[in-house]
């Protein structure tokens, strides 16, 4: 949601500032002063915080398709709240995205690497190797304060 709304605000703001010439790169900096661009950047920062948090416990190829649900929500808001016309092609796009997210959501969130387990266990509640009786790895040593909680 934040990403799609942020992109929309950025687009509106950049259309107000006009074309940016490669010979005047500093005008990109001035574009950030536009309130629409600034609001778009704030929403994109909120998206980034949620995105990095999800990446700490799930695979990139699991998280990234899920973020595309924002496109679907925006299209549904446009149709039912703003009463815009949504073409059959866009409905097909919504169906494809929903299907894609459903596909990936049905599988495991995190790839297990037997030789190098994730520091705090996966989203399915699996524990680090040392918690299962194996030798600690370098990545789990980095996470010592929390892995002790995971053991309990």
């Amino acid at each position, binding site marked *: 949601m934040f990403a799609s709304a942020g992109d929309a605000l950025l687009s509106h703001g950049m*259309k107000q500032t006009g074309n940016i010439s490669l010979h005047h790169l500093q005008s990109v900096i001035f574009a950030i002063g536009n309130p629409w661009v600034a609001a778009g950047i704030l929403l994109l920062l909120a998206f980034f915080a949620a995105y990095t948090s999800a990446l*700490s416990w799930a695979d*990139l190829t699991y998280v990234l*398709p899920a973020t595309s649900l924002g496109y679907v929500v925006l299209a549904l808001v446009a149709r039912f709240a703003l009463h815009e016309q949504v073409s059959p092609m866009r409905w097909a*796009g919504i169906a494809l995205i929903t299907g894609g*997210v459903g*596909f990936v959501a049905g599988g495991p969130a995190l*790839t297990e690497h037997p030789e190098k387990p994730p520091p705090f266990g996966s989203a399915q509640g699996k524990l680090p190797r040392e918690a299962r009786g194996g030798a600690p790895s370098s990545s789990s040593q980095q996470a010592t304060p929390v892995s002790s909680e995971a053991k309990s």
Partner: protein
Amino acid sequence: MKLLYTWSAILVIALASVVGDVLISHAMKQVGDVGLLRRRAGLWTVVARVVGNRNFVLGVGAMAVAFFSLLFALSWGDVSLVGPAAASLTFIGNAFAAKIFLHERVDRRRWIAALLVAGGVALLAG
């Protein structure tokens, strides 16, 4: 000429996004589950560990390149072209990069998901 500029910017956005996504994903796996870490050590510890990670900083740098390329692209082309085209290329590129560099198990289910989402995003622009 404007279309050439737009597509060049789209390619730069997709490439920089893939590099940034891979680096940030790797960094966040090194940091660990931030929910657990925050409950155990507090929010500032989480922030310090994330910001102090070199891969995270490099990833944010790549994301900044993607962001400014997006600003250029949006000033040259429509958001209905730039957004979906860059997003679709990023989905496909990330599936390859995650398999090669992050050693994620990109099975048939995830390939299909990446292709469906990329196609769906492209159709939304229609």
